[in-house]
């Protein structure tokens, strides 16, 4: 199994200076944007994106061309790049920001040309200080060259780009929470409807919110055509995708591959297998929000639809391998604690539910569990996401609450004995 390098090609070939504008331009950078702005048309760009069938790389996997098509008419429209990468297991946007910021900026220029947008923002999580510095330097270099600001490439187009730093809140990766945060408010998700960003987004104006990896793909798609991009990968999951591989593997890291091979192949080949030749007990196919797969399910294909058909999600492309020695109750507790900490507190089922799940799991993990705790955990989960089905039913404004349910249902469906073994059978005095 081999990588297919589109987004990570420039950084691989120019490791020491891929973040600088001279290096980027020497390798053909900004040429696509220049040609598009001078000779292209917004309609053509949109057509290429639609033809590529690229689906959003942030987690939800919504078709990007369709999203762009929803953007309502208005004099003021905005583009916001979601660089609030915080899903446990995920570190793919970090490499794109740190090592190829100009690719993202070129993608932003082309996107804004296609959508007639004059103001764009990159919302980077506060903990990504180094990536943010690199992006800020890149933005300044682009302004100096006249690639941002007024009359870009001597065309009619004006574009201002601001790098905005968040302050430590996972929930701001949810697009409407991100917009509230960017407006200087608490990062609480908004109700959809009516607050669909494409209609009522930033400052209640039509807004595109796209992930770093999605927009970084735009220059390649426009340069090589959507048709060529569509040939990569498989139907429904076209193009390449950067997977973040972590956990008990020999070679963790970011790997850019065409979607379609199996998780097992991926881990054995690019990940060089599990450390100390251990077996996989369970793995997370798409970030902490995703229900787990068992070690005997490694033949599932890495596509959005295959993973969904097996009742989980490819999400942000974060694959976490857990070997046979892993204490899965502790692993689940870590994930549930994460969501309890990151709940914004607006919706009662999430605010209270995640906190109770954390407390009950904590006592089970430490050997103080009660015989009724398994039923209690499932009952609390059912109050957050009725029916415990996949995709999850919601009692909350956003999917954060239901995400905390994933590790618990995974435990109870596939590893129930492990939980039961921790619960004392005699009454403790």
């Amino acid at each position, binding site marked *: 199994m081999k990588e297919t390098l589109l987004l990570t090609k420039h950084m691989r070939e120019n490791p020491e200076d891929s973040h600088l504008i001279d290096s980027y331009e020497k390798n053909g950078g900004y040429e696509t944007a220049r040609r598009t702005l001078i000779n292209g048309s917004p309609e053509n760009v949109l057509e290429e994106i639609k033809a590529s069938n690229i689906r959003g790389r942030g987690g939800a996997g919504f078709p990007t061309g369709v999203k762009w098509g929803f953007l309502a008419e208005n004099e003021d429209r905005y583009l916001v790049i979601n660089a609030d990468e915080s899903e446990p297991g*995920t*570190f793919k946007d970090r490499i794109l920001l740190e090592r190829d910021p100009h690719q993202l900026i070129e993608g932003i220029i082309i996107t804004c040309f296609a959508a007639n947008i004059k103001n764009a923002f990159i919302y980077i999580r506060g903990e990504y200080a*180094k990536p943010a510095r690199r992006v800020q330097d890149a933005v300044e270099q682009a302004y100096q060259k006249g690639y941002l600001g007024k009359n870009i490439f001597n065309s009619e187009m004006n574009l201002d780009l601001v790098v*905005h730093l968040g302050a*430590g809140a996972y929930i701001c990766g949810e697009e409407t929470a991100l917009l509230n945060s960017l407006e200087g408010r608490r990062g609480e998700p908004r109700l959809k409807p009516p607050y669909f960003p494409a209609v009522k987004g930033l400052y209640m104006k039509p807004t595109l919110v796209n992930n770093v990896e999605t927009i970084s793909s735009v220059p390649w798609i426009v340069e090589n055509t959507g048709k060529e991009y569509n040939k990569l990968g498989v139907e429904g999951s076209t193009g390449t995708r950067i997977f973040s591989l972590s*956990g008990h593997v020999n070679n*963790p*890291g*970011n790997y850019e591959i065409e979607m379609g091979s199996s998780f097992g192949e991926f881990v054995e080949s690019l990940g060089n297998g599990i450390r100390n030749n251990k077996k996989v007990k369970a793995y997370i196919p798409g970030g902490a929000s995703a229900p787990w797969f068992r070690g005997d399910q490694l033949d599932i294909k890495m596509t959005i639809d295959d993973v969904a058909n097996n009742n989980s999600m490819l999400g942000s492309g974060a694959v976490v391998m857990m070997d046979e020695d892993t204490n899965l109750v502790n*692993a689940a507790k870590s994930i549930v604690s994460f969501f309890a900490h990151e709940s914004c507190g607006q919706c009662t089922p999430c605010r209270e539910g995640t906190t109770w799940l954390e407390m009950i799991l904590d006592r089970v993990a430490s050997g103080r569990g009660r015989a009724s705790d398994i039923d209690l955990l499932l009952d609390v989960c059912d109050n957050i996401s009725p029916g415990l089905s996949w995709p999850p039913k919601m009692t909350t404004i956003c999917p954060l609450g239901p995400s905390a349910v994933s590790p618990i249902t995974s435990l109870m469906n596939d590893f129930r004995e492990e939980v039961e073994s921790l619960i004392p059978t005699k009454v403790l005095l």
Partner: protein
Amino acid sequence: MSWNDSMIKQAKKIIKMYPQKRSAIGPLLHLAQSKDGYISDDSIAVISELVGITEVQVKSVSTFYSMYKQEPTGKYLLSVCKSISCEINNSKEIIDVVKDFTGLNNNETDENDLFTFEAVECIGACGGAPAMQINYETVEGLSSENTIKLCEWLKEEQPDVIIAEEMQDNFGGTKSFDWAIKDQSGTTGSVPGFQTFNTTKEKK
């Protein structure tokens, strides 16, 4: 107002970056923290006046986000990750080592105002687990021994600029990916080192 002229000038520059003033609250809170090491009531009042919204609204924003500290922090904010990839790669041990070395529990600051310790959620260093940040600069692939050495180095050298590359070279291990670029800029306080807040510097 009790921010000095250069702070006010910087604040006004930040406000101008946005179509609406209120958007500047986040960056201004980072700026406030770079001044005091936490969000003081005084800063809340200044920001409220600059942006034109009530103090309680600014306060409600500042208490929502975990990076805005409501109590003074030490010179070095030690944030050890405890999320899933770190959890299954022994982050508990790293947390214990840092707690032992500093004598601190979660969210505590020592009496010399040198260290603040916190166990935090995912910092995006999962491929290099276990990992931590010092003043939001990342070190990956930690061992217990190297974590102690890192803490000793901070205590003895007390560097004014914290640089990820320097720490990674001396105390780190497996990385999430090849960092490749030998950057020598870092942060000057227990805040993200970022141009907009004047909190980043190159090493001399």
